[in-house]
């Protein structure tokens, strides 16, 4: 194993002197890329799944929270000169507060005497998405930016049996970040009274109220955490790829894919579904036609839902 500081991230060394056919040479890299990016998709979908599980809100604005977080990271970096990864806690705190404040508005739109709360939530967050995107285009413009981190220019090379893989350090960070967030969220849900209340609300809303759980306050915190994690993930994405005011849509679609595949509101399925998405995307990019990657992804989702209507991993409800 050696280190190369000048290598462009994502560049695949193609070694033609070995016996291994080129397409096979690309496989380890494709699988690794898929797993690394799948990690980031976990954090794109976790909050989305939690918000649905607890409040039955399908949050179509998830991609826009990612976009807004990314731009906050971008501007903070320009003003402070700090590494974007050091700014993650700030972005999380700011957007948790934003989500906490906005949730009661969404709650008002979807509850009370409305006939179909899930649909109302969908329409409302769809409107929220359009409003944020429009405002984003007005304020941030059409151009793409990047939020370079000190890690962005570094890569690790691994070699085994004539096969090479490149591991861009920033993608490795994204993966570790995602696993870390997942572990923390898991711990909070399993080991704290707040987590107990969140799970109680998701499993039986009426009974949770009888236990003295304030559904609105817990709902605000859940939405706050969802928005905070999404925004923070936006910064990580911005230091891996690039950011623009229109970036949100893609991530909303990907979050939707992961959550449906995992089983709506079923958190434990999210990591596996996210890895599967990363792998499918990455393999199709190498062995298929990149223009049709999303089509392939959704064709697979369609086939899976034909066989298993509640998603791949959902147990029970």
């Amino acid at each position, binding site marked *: 194993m050696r280190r190369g500081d000048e290598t462009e991230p994502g560049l695949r060394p193609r070694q033609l002197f070995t016996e291994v056919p080129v397409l096979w040479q690309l496989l380890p890299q494709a699988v690794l890329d898929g797993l690394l990016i799948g990690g980031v998709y976990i954090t794109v979908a976790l909050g989305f799944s939690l918000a649905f599980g607890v409040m039955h809100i399908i949050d179509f604005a998830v991609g826009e929270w990612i976009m807004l977080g990314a731009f906050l990271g971008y501007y903070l970096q320009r003003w402070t000169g700090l590494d974007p990864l050091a700014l993650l806690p700030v972005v999380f705190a700011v957007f948790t507060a934003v989500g906490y404040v906005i949730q009661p508005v969404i709650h008002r739109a979807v509850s009370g005497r409305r006939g179909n709360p899930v649909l109302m939530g969908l329409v409302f967050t769809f409107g929220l998405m359009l409003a944020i995107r429009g405002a984003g285009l007005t304020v941030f413009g059409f151009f793409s930016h990047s939020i370079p981190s000190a890690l962005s220019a570094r890569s690790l090379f691994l070699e085994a049996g004539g096969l090479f893989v490149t591991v861009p350090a920033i993608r490795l960070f994204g993966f570790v970040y995602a696993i870390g967030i997942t572990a923390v969220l898991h711990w909070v849900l399993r080991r704290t009274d707040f987590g*107990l209340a969140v*799970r109680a609300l998701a*499993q039986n809303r*009426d*009974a949770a*109220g*009888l236990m*003295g*759980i304030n559904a609105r306050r817990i709902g605000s915190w859940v939405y706050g955490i969802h928005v905070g994690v999404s925004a923070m993930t936006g910064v990580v994405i911005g230091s891996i790829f690039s950011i623009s005011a229109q970036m949100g849509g893609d991530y909303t679609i990907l979050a939707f894919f992961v959550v449906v595949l995992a089983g709506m509101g079923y958190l434990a399925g999210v990591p596996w579904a996210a890895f599967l998405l990363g792998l499918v995307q990455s393999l199709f990019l190498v062995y298929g036609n990149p223009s049709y990657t999303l089509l392939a992804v959704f064709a697979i989702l369609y086939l899976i839902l034909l066989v298993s209507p509640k998603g791949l991993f959902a147990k029970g409800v």
Partner: protein
Amino acid sequence: MSGLVLEAVSAHYGDVQALWDVSLSVAPGRLVTLLGANGAGKTTTLRTICGQVKASAGTVRYDGREITRCEVHEVADLGITLVPEGRQLFPQMTVEENLLVGSYLPRTRANRKRNLSRVYDLFPRLAERRSQRAETLSGGEQQMLAIGRGLMQEPHLIMFDEPSLGLAPILVREIFGIIRELHRQGLTIFLVEQNVHHAIRVADYCYVIENGRVVREGAPLDLEADPAIRQAYLGL
């Protein structure tokens, strides 16, 4: 007056009126039952008390304080606990986690360990199954868990909604034995039942509800002697 007092309470589900001028009271330390057939308004009465349904007219008071407009979690914090119809457990949580949710309220958290061991003493079956998921319990065990979870809330007034529903006769006797024991320990109890035979035997005072209206009230012996009640509810 202390305890629970309902004065001329009406309640609606949408346009349908479910309760008409219901007045009743449960004094501290007593065991009062509300008897009635399916759909008579028993569950609605309980839901109105605990804030799940908002009364459209009338007042609900507890220890002199008006709670008619209180939120569900606020009523729970006052020490009014409902053991709901159909258990309403958290199905994917373990037995112990269900009990821990019962002591979510800050005023009970300090006593969590003590309350937990009390519940396990009262229901040794729950102790045996503490790490089992609630949805895997039998009907009787689920009812015990629902009661245990309610006791974790350190209630002053505990309300039971059809605790005997769907249980085998031997378990019905066991559940009523526990209700009687809780009463003996000084808990105020409001019991809603279809099983009039059992309920009338444990009660200090009874109300009968029909079509959303309280039609009769009195001491258990008076009600048992009433020919109309005997025919309608006791099948005698």
